[in-house]
């Protein structure tokens, strides 16, 4: 799903890093967001709606709509479309509203 050749843009990708989604190891690049890295790995469903448990993906990708909330390193309600990926991050689909610890 990555664009390798583009007529106008050159993508300066950062170094390759590993992270986990639902326990599965995946690869992404430093400097990209969690949602972009997941999408590049073919993961479209990031969570579920609160009442009807319908699948949720991102919508705005600029931090305005909260459609992309996930649990990242144990912290719930993280907007993954504006959160940068880090080496070793553990990203999980969030069930329910999340709890304050």
């Amino acid at each position, binding site marked *: 799903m990555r664009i390798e050749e583009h007529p106008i843009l050159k993508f300066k990708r950062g170094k390759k890093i590993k992270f986990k989604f639902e326990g599965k190891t995946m690869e992404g690049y430093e400097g990209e967001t969690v949602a972009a890295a997941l999408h*590049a790995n073919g993961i479209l469903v990031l969570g579920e709606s609160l009442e009807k448990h319908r699948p949720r993906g991102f919508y705005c990708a600029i*931090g305005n709509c909260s459609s992309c909330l996930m649990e990242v390193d144990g912290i719930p309600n993280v907007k993954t479309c504006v959160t940068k990926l880090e080496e070793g991050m553990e990203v999980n689909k969030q069930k329910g509203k999340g709890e304050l610890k």
Partner: protein
Amino acid sequence: MINTDIAIVGGGPAGLCAAISAAESGAKVTLIERNDELGGQLVKQTHMFFGSEKQYASTRGIDISDILLEKLEGHKENVTIMKNTTVLGRYEDGVITGMIDENKYLKFNPEALIVATGATEKFLGFPNNDLPGIYGAGAVQTLMNVYGVKPGDKVLMVGAGNIGLIVSYQLMQAGVKVEAIIDAAPNIGGYLVHASKIRRMGVPIYTGHTVKEAIGSDHLEKAVIWQLDDKWQPIEGSEKEYDVDVMCVSVGLSPLNELLVMAGCEMEYVPELSGNVPLRNEDYETTVENIFVAGDSCGVEEASSAMVEGYLAGLTAAAKIGKIHPQYEEKKADYIKQLDDLRSGPVGKHIRSGIDKIVRR
């Protein structure tokens, strides 16, 4: 508590230009941006701009962002940039609060405030509109132009305004197939040069069509469209089905300005400006003294006018707190003329009538 002459919320084209202009007038400016990068929506716009030379026509959006950052760098001594900082509220005593790096609260005590928080994408109602694979056009642009990730293989574009047309073209540049562009309106809203370029590349544009439903189990697999009659009612039997994994929704933006509402600025719903916008005077000052506004947050237009509004609001806000630019009158007249030019002619007609409803003299 962080003391500053002018706090500017939002580092898009409007906020950047406001910072440049206020700093040039001699004010100490704090520019606050929630992302880790300045530039706002410009950072994903790979196409060349319209407008005139003063607004960098024929330059790509991504490059305009760099030009503005360089200009800002020239006023380093007057500008503090705070990235990863979201402004959360404004209190009666004029203090604004923010959060840096998602974990630390800050307070600012500016003499004047310029709100340049931009806009947010609108959504469209139809069955299963929440399936993953249905994305805002800006989101798709961000994904492919900033991160180099394809949104999918086949796209239905909903909305034939400039954003819909431009993003369709950019999707094709990224090697993604655009099956069709549809728009509920009877005419194409965007510039015809863009539309004919896309048609020449073999993409049909259906006006008078809307989405009937989306189909898929856990992500989009099919989209069904149908035709509307002249009363905007769907015509049974006119359905067309597309096997697409992405639907791009490009039905406009609405101003993002909760901060102004919170501050008690008088607001009005103005359809021509795409939503709820603050009443203001010619200096872009709202009904609350020393709160100024610029860019999409006071009416959705385009980046060119957002920049000029930013320059103007930076100039007038600085003057309001006693930092008067030596060429204040000439500069102000020039910005007002630039805005008039950008809004002239038939294309700017609805913007002009919207602005007439909110400007208090």
